[in-house]
């Protein structure tokens, strides 16, 4: 357990990245109630492990813990989602229900639906790159995947997102 002075350091170094933690968890779990619980758990874990943080990039360190907590939660509660990376093409494509079409009329919702239709592993690199502004190196650090794989995953994720958006636009018109 951390010492009292560590709590101050934790509040100064790690807590400022709470928004980043909330954003990543929300996009990985696609649901606010679940992601808030997972962020809370991840922050407690980060606090307990804080003695193991030896300086460096506090945001990447925290996001690594948040990501692991998210995946553990997914494995336990929605294991099927983690399988989608093998058959993303099958699951892919916007839903054609009238409700979904109406949703897509709105740009923000259309983007959200498109992002959420990607596999968790494609979604996380896109969210980290485009919303969080992480470099490839930081993404590699957070996800634990080599830079080369970061690049190819990001490239595939962007192409899929673009294709999904084009398909969604066609459906609306």
């Amino acid at each position, binding site marked *: 357990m951390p010492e009292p002075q560590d709590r101050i350091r934790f*509040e100064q170094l790690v*807590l*400022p990245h*709470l928004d980043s933690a*909330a954003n990543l968890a929300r996009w990985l779990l696609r649901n606010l109630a679940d992601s808030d619980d997972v962020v809370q758990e991840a922050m407690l874990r980060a606090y307990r492990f804080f003695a193991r943080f030896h300086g460096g990039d506090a945001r990447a360190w925290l996001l690594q813990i948040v990501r692991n907590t998210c995946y553990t939660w997914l494995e336990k509660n929605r294991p099927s989602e983690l399988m989608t990376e093998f058959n993303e093409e099958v699951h892919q494509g916007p839903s054609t229900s009238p409700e979904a079409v109406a949703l897509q009329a709105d*740009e*923000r919702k259309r983007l959200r639906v498109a992002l959420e239709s990607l596999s968790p592993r494609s979604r996380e690199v896109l969210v980290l790159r485009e919303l969080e502004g992480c470099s490839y190196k930081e993404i590699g650090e957070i996800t634990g995947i080599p830079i080369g794989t970061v690049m*190819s995953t990001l490239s595939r994720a962007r192409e899929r997102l673009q294709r999904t958006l084009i398909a969604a636009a066609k459906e609306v018109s």
Partner: protein
Amino acid sequence: MNCELEQTTVYGYFDGELDAVRSAQFERHLEGCAECQTALVGIESLRTRLQKSNLYKHASPDLRERIRKQLAQAAGAQRDTAVHSRRWFLLPAFGILASAAAALAIVFFVVQPNTQSAQITAELIDAHVRSLQPGHLTDVQSTDQHTVKPWFDGKLDFIPPVTDYSEYGFPLLGGRLDVIGGQNVAALVYSHHKHLINLFVWPYREEEPSLGSSGSRQGYNWTTWQAGEMRFCLISDAASSDIVELKDLIHP
């Protein structure tokens, strides 16, 4: 696809991740490759759409509060075990004395520092949190220092220095009036990445308690200093190093 370049090179260039040599090579290639030009336009437009759509999910005030409580609890539980274990190793009577002394010491160190300055700090944090509520951030919304500065004219009996630090990554968003410790203060709002920073400025008074130079509470960091006849306080949920960076810009 006629272009034989890998997609990752185009993306790498767009993300600024290619080294200078490969970047220059790509630029030469780009001049003659319509396919890569189209690809770049596509990525650019995708990024613009994503960033304009406000998709970033900030932590809710409710989540912040839950985490704050949880950390306080975790730290509290830790203190309890520390007292228990100490008692375990010592004679019982002496142990009780020791923990009483420890408790006294905590009271002494925590409560003794000027309660007045603690109150001002609490008011500054409250003012910062209040400013984050919708519609409370700025009374004059402008990134132009020449618009913000005159706005304070006649509203305060002093003129706060107003400078935009966009080029250093701290764009000015605007200003407003606030009240701290019963006196009117100027509040300037800066943003840094996704964090908002309030700069409070007020004329220094002799009887004012010293605030210490910096601190942290409830996840907010602040730093305060005095320059000339003015007192300054920066406060934000941004990292303390970012706050110090802005302070160094204001008063190098």
